[in-house]
């Protein structure tokens, strides 16, 4: 997406997504997922279009989008690293790993590095609890993540 995209351009792209999915029973979540897939986040301008297409108020759509942890209001970094914070991963040192990542990237949870390269997000269980601690890098699952392994991942996404 170019930074200069107008509300109207966003509206057209979101409208196409809505038209493709409007036939589903309960189409709002699938639409929000696809909008986020398209833009990397839910642009402010998308809400009105979705509302109009689904015959809802803009506030209702915003209410739904803001309820779920997945939907972002801002553009994420070029890479998204999720680290599991749940119990099985804790038992294998996930807290230490998270602290290490935050220090290295100089961000807190749900923040993006100043160069817009990496967004660090918490996740509560990836179903990899027998391969803990676990992480997900740009949608790819990784198990038994040591600090060294994390450092290598970070230098890969930085290069």
């Amino acid at each position, binding site marked *: 997406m170019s930074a200069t995209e107008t509300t109207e351009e966003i509206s057209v792209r979101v409208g196409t997504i809505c038209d493709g999915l409007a036939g589903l*029973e*309960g*189409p*709002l*979540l*699938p639409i*929000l*997922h696809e909008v986020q897939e398209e833009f990397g986040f839910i642009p402010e301008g998308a809400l009105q279009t979705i509302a109009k297409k*689904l015959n809802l108020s803009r506030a209702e759509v915003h*209410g*739904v989008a803001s*309820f*779920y*942890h*997945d*939907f972002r209001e801002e553009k994420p970094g070029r890479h998204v690293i999720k680290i599991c*914070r*749940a*119990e*099985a*991963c*804790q*038992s*294998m040192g996930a*807290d230490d790993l*998270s*602290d290490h990542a*935050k220090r290295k990237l100089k961000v*807190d949870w749900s923040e993006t590095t100043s160069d817009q390269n990496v967004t660090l997000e918490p*996740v*509560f*269980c*990836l*179903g*990899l*609890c*027998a*391969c*803990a601690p*676990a992480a*997900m890098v740009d*949608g790819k*699952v*990784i*198990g*038994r993540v040591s600090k060294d392994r994390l450092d290598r991942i970070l230098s890969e996404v930085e290069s």
Partner: protein
Amino acid sequence: MTVKIYVPLDSGSVALGADEVATAIAATAAKRGEDVQIVRNGSFGMYWLEPMVEVETSRGRLAYGPVAVEDVDSLFDAGFLNGSDHKRYLGHTQDIPFLKAQTRLTFQRCGIIDPVSLDDYRANDGLKGLENALKMTSEDIVKAVTDSGLRGRGGAGFPTGIKWNTVRQAPGDQKYIVCNADEGDSGTFADRMIMEGEPFVLIEGMIIAGLATGATKGYVYTRSEYPDAIRIMNEAIEVARANKLLGPKVLGSDYAFDMEVRMGAGAYVCGEETSLLNSMEGKRGVVRAKPPLPALEGFMARPTVVNNVISLCSVPVILEKGAEYYRDFGMGRSRGTIPIQIAGNVKHGGLYETAFGLTLGEIVDQIGGGTASGRPVKAVQVGGPLGAYFPRELFDTPFDYEAFAKADGLIGHAGVVVFDDSVDMMKQARFAMEFCAIESCGKCTPCRIGSTRGTEVVDKIARGEDPEMQKELLADLCETMKFGSLCALGGFTPYPVMSALTHFPDDFRPHALDIAAE
């Protein structure tokens, strides 16, 4: 002759490098001019051996694991295509003790077959349950499920047959089967494994549920954290449709059934059935008050079965082999088998399907082999973030719904998370409160506000601000949450908190809590 090599596609295996190993095997075989076919199968669930590679030989399927990319050349050198010895050699897959000792009814084909090959599924007795069901009346199908003693594996343990009967008798021309595949509990991965390793058994179970209740449409609601499971489920549904297993004439009969997958959006509470239905309808995932029951007014206010993945996947074998066959496994009112998921700081982490009734100690010490760190086991959390922490003194508790309830715990989705003696139980109690605060749907005050107060109270104990009084306050708060919450998120958070406080009082002395920088 082409040699068949199995490399799992299960995301647990992929997280440990299975994709890279598969690529390396293909490249090495090509370079050496070996004729191989790589099949991506599900995982048998022995994660300390993943990626576990199998070779089909004249002696049967032989396993090697855990295989790293660096091992591939030496495996070829050693002649593993003929099943030769190697430092990673494990012998016949089915003879690996962890697997051999299990009773696999629900997971019987997981790991064995190509997940999206319907031919493989059929060749391994798949669809027999459905073929029987197609010849039965809806009453008789429900009766078989009721008689099997199957209780919902999603946490509450509600009898599946009774739920189905309510939907069967409910008036309405459109009914739904909703599969709850949200699996948010830490330490659980059975739903993920079976969706990735044997999706047709879920499809079969859902069609049977449709026949039993008169539902013609099914939904699998699963989490966005499971992209691989979503992809494989979708692929299997397409194969099923192309083969007329789904569609207007299921297997040539007069029954219509079709299904689709829906993805959640990162909210734990959406595993609660009514919140899940709201989410599917495109609303905020807040919990609905019951009544009305989803069985009568569920998805789109129509009669709806909401069942967990494993509940539905247990149905085909019941219809294939009969209610009695299934019922004969287990103890007390906990019948059949349960896929126990052993995770966390444990040597042999993985999925172990067995009849109810093993003791917790047997599961942790013998099957799990103790901790991965080699240090003593200090606590075991069973049943996810809302489940109690068990100390060693309670290791004789049998794995059975009633026995766990008696010990102030719950089986939940049967996830067992092991902690060694380095765990700080005050920190775990704080985390339980924090998790509840993050994930609360916001409908009731004790859950929404109480959980935030809970973390503050634990922090005060840690700082030594009148700790004895704070502990009383914490217990009081837990009591309020337990009785004042609409659903189990607020209502069960007291389990991990109070079990930590009761069984590990020494950890609740003032000391610096090492809390992830916030």
